[in-house]
């Protein structure tokens, strides 16, 4: 196990609705996420997965339980405002709607927003912005207006806006939900490259099974608790349990399960289309 980057124990969160009743969202999340891991968090709407993400960089505060991020105990009473900013610099977040997270009217000005807030000297901001735009492949759009970009491009700009603060972890809060398949692919490939090449911890909150299948580890949250936690292969091998959580397995996995139920001898649980095709080919050859 690599060094733990995020550690939670019995993490709970609840909000009070208009009628004054307490609505629990998270009912005791216990997990560890290592530095450099690529984790997908799955769950249907209202399962608490987005709330979990928002706790990780202190947009909201936990009700009870332990929460340690990047070596800082976020439930301690001694946290100062500076600690919040240090944490948010380290744990960046990309949101669902690309339009609602871009602040400036020019791409590079928007990317510069974070380091400007941190008080980084101008020359260094310039260098960092150029590097971040190059990393997400948006250098040629540096002087463009964000509203003229495609959804995928906007999300890449948003990622650059996080990268420029040199984070160790990026959280994607359904960052691909509003994108078309091409845009989704752009964003996922960008994030995967960051995870692979820069060792940035990636936590992807999603309800796209095919996206989750590409992660190293899948955590399924249902009704505020973790119900499954393992490699995509392990998690998708239990379609019934997923179904109960209001989720589907990736199409190829459900195909294999259906074939097996019909008596076709297939072994293994493929999570990608290629693996699935290979498996069926092999079965046909026999």
């Amino acid at each position, binding site marked *: 196990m690599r060094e733990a980057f995020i550690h939670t124990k019995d993490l709970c969160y609840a909000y009070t609705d208009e009628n004054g009743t307490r609505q629990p969202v998270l009912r005791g999340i216990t997990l560890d996420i290592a530095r450099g891991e690529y984790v997908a968090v799955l769950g249907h709407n209202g399962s608490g997965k987005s709330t979990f993400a928002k706790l990780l*960089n202190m*947009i909201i505060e936990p009700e009870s339980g332990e929460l340690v991020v990047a070596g800082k105990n976020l439930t301690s009473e001694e946290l100062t405002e500076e600690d919040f*900013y240090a944490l*948010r*610099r380290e744990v*960046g*977040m990309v*949101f669902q*709607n690309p*339009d*609602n*997270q*871009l*602040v*400036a*009217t*020019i791409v*590079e*000005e928007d990317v*510069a*927003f*974070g*380091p*400007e*807030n*941190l*008080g*980084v*000297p*101008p020359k260094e*901001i*310039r260098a960092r*912005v150029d590097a971040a735009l190059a990393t997400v492949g948006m250098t040629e759009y540096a*002087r463009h*207006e*964000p*509203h*003229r970009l495609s959804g995928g491009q906007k999300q890449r700009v948003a990622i650059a*806006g*996080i990268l420029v*603060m040199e984070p160790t972890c990026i959280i994607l809060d359904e960052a691909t939900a509003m994108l078309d398949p091409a845009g989704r692919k752009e964003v996922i490939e960008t994030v995967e490259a960051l995870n692979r090449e820069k060792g940035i911890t990636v936590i992807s909150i999603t309800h796209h099974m095919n996206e989750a299948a590409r992660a190293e580890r899948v955590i399924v949250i249902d009704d505020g608790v973790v119900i499954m936690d393992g490699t995509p292969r392990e998690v998708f091998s239990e379609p019934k349990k997923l179904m109960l959580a209001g989720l589907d397995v990736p199409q190829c996995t459900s195909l294999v399960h259906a074939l097996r139920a019909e008596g076709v001898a297939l072994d293994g649980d493929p999570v990608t289309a290629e693996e699935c095709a290979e498996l069926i080919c092999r079965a046909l050859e026999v």
Partner: protein
Amino acid sequence: MKNIAFGQYYPARSPLHTMDARMKVVLSVLYIVAAFLCKSAPAYAALLASAVVLLLLSRIPPRIVLRSLRPLFFIMIFTALLNLFFSGGTTVLFSFWRITVYVEGVYSAVFMLVRIVVLIFGTSIFLTYTTTPIELTDAIESLLSPLRILKLPVHEFAMMMSIALRFIPTLMEETSKIMNAQKARGVDFSSGGLIKRAKALVPILIPLIVSSFRRADELAMAMECRCYRGGKGRTKMTVPKLSVLDFVALAFMVAFGGTLLYLNGFRFGL
């Protein structure tokens, strides 16, 4: 809807684009003053010529700048007609029925047209076409920064302005989406009297306002995630610096004002 001309920056490489935005704000104020200094035909001719020179200097295609006149077309014609028919004078050009048109009226109509066109040209070339909105808000923030002594929230004001500018195209797009959605539900926007049409706007405005609040909430969260905490301790990627070019431009503007005053002395034709 994506190509609205309001406040839209036109990227190009020109001396006007490279000038310090603060100087451009000062210059456009001076230019407006200059436009009101004009009193004689030669002065107006010089003013019109200066607008053409500005246009050439900015390297923006003329048709783009001309487009900015279109929304004000009605006001321009209206002002010209008012001046034509209602300014008194001594030399009668012609009269019919109860209307008398004086030569002075023709002059004042033409002058007024020139003044309006030049004002729009000048300010839009200086401010909106060659200056990005963010440069503009930064410039205003910088020019207003002395007011901080009076505890006025200058940074917050500039931030609000730049966010408003950023969201204009987004909200325009949203408006057209909502309009289409309401049209699909049978709302009729284009017929009926004034009151009926105004009422038809309610189903557009309410969803628009609701969604703006949602956007504002999300934006605030995204800004917090990017460590925004007001103007305190904030730096800028591009630090504006006054260059020789800016002072040359200022010298030209002052000289231009002087020339206009001088030309006011020549009053041929009037």
